[in-house]
């Protein structure tokens, strides 16, 4: 079939195009129309003057960022936290998926799965309450427990050294179920015959797991990991801000690029400086996504995003 012109296609399917309209308008407004505004990184943007009426200042906003003492800290924090999140969530999710797969009883399996998945649907705001109930300085049960053991109580909220671990545990707690469901679905899809053949050859459950399940699961693991690594420059703002908030004492361990951009914009009130950092992040992010996608394409042709 020859391709019609776009206008003709619209004339032929008016109702279909009409139904596309709301989604298209939204994507245009909040997707494409935001892109020109990235230029304010090179301006001293004022909300009144708008994009065209603001003064251009060249690279001064970038200078502000790269000369500040925070730059190295927040970049390293972002990458470090993300890599830890990826490592620990993947490891525990894969292990758990394999274990749950070994469980024979369907009901048990289902209930367990539901339990794991529940935290994924809670907001970080709620998680911050839960965390406070556990490690809160006055009434938290962790502190009650420490006292019970005859140890000193710890005021976690003023000691950054604990926070990398706390954030990793929270992330694993929240995302474990989601990832586990994906891996479990992959395992359930494996060909049953392979296992039967192995059983005839006298392989035990552990051997099957080591030599069949794990190797067959690897492509999925690698694919999801590659995709996650592509986003390594993007901190989880919702998580960090809901849990740490404006508690400056903890910034050494918890401050990431996204929270820093937010503060620059809201507290310091400088959208242009915030945009400069954000633009730097977008560029690094772009390189990462492109790189990991290239890797994915090379390794498995269906694994690539685009």
């Amino acid at each position, binding site marked *: 079939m020859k391709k*019609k012109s*776009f206008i003709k*296609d619209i004339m032929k*399917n008016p109702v*279909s*195009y009409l*139904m*596309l309209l*709301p989604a298209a308008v939204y*994507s245009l*407004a*909040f*997707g494409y129309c*935001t892109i*020109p*505004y*990235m230029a*304010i990184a090179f301006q001293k943007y004022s*909300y009144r003057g708008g994009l065209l009426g603001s003064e251009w200042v060249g690279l001064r906003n970038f200078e502000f960022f790269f000369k500040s003492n925070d730059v190295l800290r927040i970049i390293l924090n972002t990458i470090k936290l993300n890599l830890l999140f990826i490592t620990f969530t993947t490891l525990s999710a894969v292990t758990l998926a394999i*274990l749950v797969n*070994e*469980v024979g009883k369907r009901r*048990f399996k289902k209930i367990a799965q*539901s*339990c*794991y*998945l*529940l*935290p994924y*649907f*809670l*907001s970080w*705001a*709620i998680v911050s*309450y*839960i965390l*406070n*109930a*556990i490690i809160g300085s006055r*009434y*938290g*049960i962790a502190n*009650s427990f420490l006292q019970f053991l005859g140890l000193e109580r710890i005021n976690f909220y003023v000691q950054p050294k604990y926070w990398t671990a706390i954030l990793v545990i929270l992330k694993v*707690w929240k995302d474990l*179920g989601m990832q586990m*469901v*994906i891996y479990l*679905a992959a395992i359930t899809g494996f060909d049953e015959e392979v296992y039967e053949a192995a059983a005839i050859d006298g392989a035990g*459950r552990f051997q099957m797991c080591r030599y069949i399940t794990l190797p067959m699961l690897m492509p999925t693991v690698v694919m999801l990991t590659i995709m996650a690594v592509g986003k390594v420059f993007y901190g989880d703002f919702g998580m960090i801000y809901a849990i740490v908030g*404006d508690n400056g004492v903890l910034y050494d361990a918890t401050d990431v690029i996204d929270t820093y951009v937010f503060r620059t*914009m809201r507290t310091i009130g400088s*959208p242009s400086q*915030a*945009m400069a950092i954000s*633009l730097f*992040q*977008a560029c690094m992010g772009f390189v990462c*996504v492109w790189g990991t996608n290239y890797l994915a394409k090379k390794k498995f042709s269906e694994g690539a*995003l*685009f």
Partner: protein
Amino acid sequence: MRARKKITPGKILIYIVVTLVACFCLLPLVLVVAVSFTAEEEIIRNGYSLIPGRLSLEAYKMLFKNGKEVFRCYINSVVVTAAGTVLATMITAMASYSLANPSVQYRNAISMFFFVTMVFNGGMVPWYIMCKNLGLTENYLALLIPSLIFSPFNLFLMRNYMQQLPASLMESAKLDGANDGVIAFRIYFPLCKPILATVALFYGIAYWNDWWNAIMLVSDSKMYPIQYYLMKLRSDQNFMKQLQSAGVAGRGAFAPSESLQMATAAITIGPIVLLYPFLQKYIVKGLVIGSVKG
């Protein structure tokens, strides 16, 4: 299979580990609920605990009596979530029908148009300027529209599902003279109930859990959704503590009691936990389809 039925120590160990992890996932939630039912003096004396020493409904009574502010925010969340879920699901369903419609020749290009926004956009600052330009600040629309009302991820989820329906369905309806609107609403959407439920659920949870729009776009506390109210409650309380330790505010200054805070958190988790068992299968299905094919 005989080998599977045998109970071995390994099997028992697996069951124990799987159960322990389930407890690890659930107990923190139980803790919040338990504290909300604990008498205040009990908390002050012994701290939080999983098993309340003395049960008390005091926190909930107080919530119902004086919780005007809480209920306002709660209603805000309920209304925004309900309206948003319906609108968002509708917008997504209509768009995915058009993208699954083979007579739309530019459907792949249009899919690309949506996909690009998923990978590449201006970020937080331009997004905020856009909302300001469109007048989406300081009103309820600001809680409803930005970042929540449409997600390309859900669009592709639904489009993939619709593409699997037989094409003859559409052709025969067209021969009978039905237009695309009728086909979509009368034939396709009823057939897509499972995926509609999944997508509606994703949108609903995103709306219910959202505080980002409130923190960025709304400053009037009357419009806060419950999630943002919770965050504010905690940061205000930390502020109060600092004031108290600095000796500025007296002991009598207002600070919501511990169990009251947890009761507020508990009623916020409420809808999700209560609906969860019924909706669980849709969630699992959606996650699996989305992650494998998306």
